[in-house]
């Protein structure tokens, strides 16, 4: 299994507050990797550094190819739709940003796949939160990427919408796409990821497959492991 992204001793500060403290990690091809931790633990900052959105104050990030941007699909925490554009137009516009030309038929298929066929003319801002998240994931796949990075893809969703997003992630993984996502929903992680990095206070507290973590640290589920590892003594 080759490595797509390798980060070594990453440090990030905002106004003298160290948010990420010497974090080292790698993203391996064909895995579904989850970055978990409480709010404010540095997950989004870490993802931004891995993607090159933020420059680290220390450490290095090595990516598998120079033109990695053309091969990565990204959904940031705020769902970045273009104001006043329909679901269909957003998909077309993102495709243009990746220099991909989608035919009407292809757009219709993509919208169908994420259950938005009936909402193609609806302004993206008027879609339900669940529909927006599904559209955001559909948008990340316009250029058929090798790696997809999702920042808290199920945050704020109801159980049905969460289930649908998880299914989409599962389908992507089945099609050979590497997925890196952040979350603080342990149930989501144990159902979706095949490797987990547990973050606490800007550092990695533990990493491994969900089974390895349960075995190594004891506990019924990932939430218990997380509580044990991050307990204030």
């Amino acid at each position, binding site marked *: 299994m080759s490595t797509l992204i390798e980060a070594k001793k990453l440090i990030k500060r*905002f106004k003298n507050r160290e948010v990420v403290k010497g974090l080292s990690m790698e993203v391996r091809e064909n895995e579904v990797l989850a970055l978990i931790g409480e709010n404010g633990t540095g997950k989004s900052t870490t993802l931004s550094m891995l993607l090159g959105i933020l420059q680290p104050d220390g450490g290095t990030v090595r990516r598998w190819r120079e033109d990695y941007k053309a091969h990565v699909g990204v959904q940031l925490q705020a769902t970045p739709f273009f104001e006043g554009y329909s679901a269909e137009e957003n998909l077309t516009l993102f495709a243009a940003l990746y220099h991909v030309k989608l035919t009407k038929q292809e757009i219709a298929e993509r919208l169908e796949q994420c259950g938005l066929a009936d909402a193609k003319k609806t302004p993206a801002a008027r879609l339900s939160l669940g529909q927006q998240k599904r559209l955001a994931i559909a948008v990340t796949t316009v250029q058929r990427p090798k790696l997809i990075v999702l920042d808290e893809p199920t945050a704020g969703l109801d159980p049905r919408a969460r289930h649908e997003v998880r299914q989409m992630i599962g389908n992507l993984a089945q099609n050979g796409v590497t997925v890196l996502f952040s979350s603080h929903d342990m149930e989501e992680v144990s159902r979706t990821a095949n490797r987990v990095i547990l973050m606490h206070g800007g550092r990695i507290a533990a990493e491994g497959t969900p089974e390895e973590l349960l075995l190594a640290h004891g506990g019924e589920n990932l939430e218990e492991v997380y509580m044990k590892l991050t307990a204030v003594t």
Partner: protein
Amino acid sequence: MKKIFGLTIKSAFRDPYLLFWSILLPVGGCILLGLFIKVPQYPARILTGMMAVSVLLFALVTVAFYTLAQRRRGVFNLLRVTPSPLWQYISAVSGAWTVVSVVCSMLVLVIGGLVFGIPVSAVSVLLLLPILLAATIGYVFLSFPVSSISKTEGHINIISNLIILPLMFCSDAFYSLEHAPGVLKVVSRFNPFQWFINGLRSSLDVDITGWLVYLSLLAALLLVALGLAVRTFRFSDK
């Protein structure tokens, strides 16, 4: 980038704010003031004034709102992880907004011209276009610093009002400054909005010397605004 240009134009024309602030308000204001104020030459004055207002309200205020919304939604951050350079995207949308704004002000000209029977020659139209383009692009660039220093829509409202109200009321867009206090007359000479109005009037009067002067001043404003836009551009609020 053609796709982005086209989609931006399409979405702009669906925007009800554009329809109101850049078309209905200037056209309505132009017709009402032109009909009620019975002074010779006033319809031509108010027509150019309202064309300039249409451009200012769209290119500066509406675009600042769009830019803030895109930044807050993380669009600029997301653009950094696509293979498209940000400048290409900004150029495409700024170009589209410029076209929209020029079309709106031309609509004001056509409707106002028809209502008041003001003749507009082909030469005037040719002279109008560079003036409209220079002013619009300059105001679009100025909208970027306005959105960069704003964190909310409320901030944009305050900042843009602080900019546009002095610009408009220290100009002769709505009334003659002939009997205004001397200070106001001096201020109006350095007012970029007045340069724009003078440029429009020079175009309609086919006054080439005046046209060249005001086009040069607007081009200088454009360069300053571009510098400000580049220096203050913010990808996100973090």
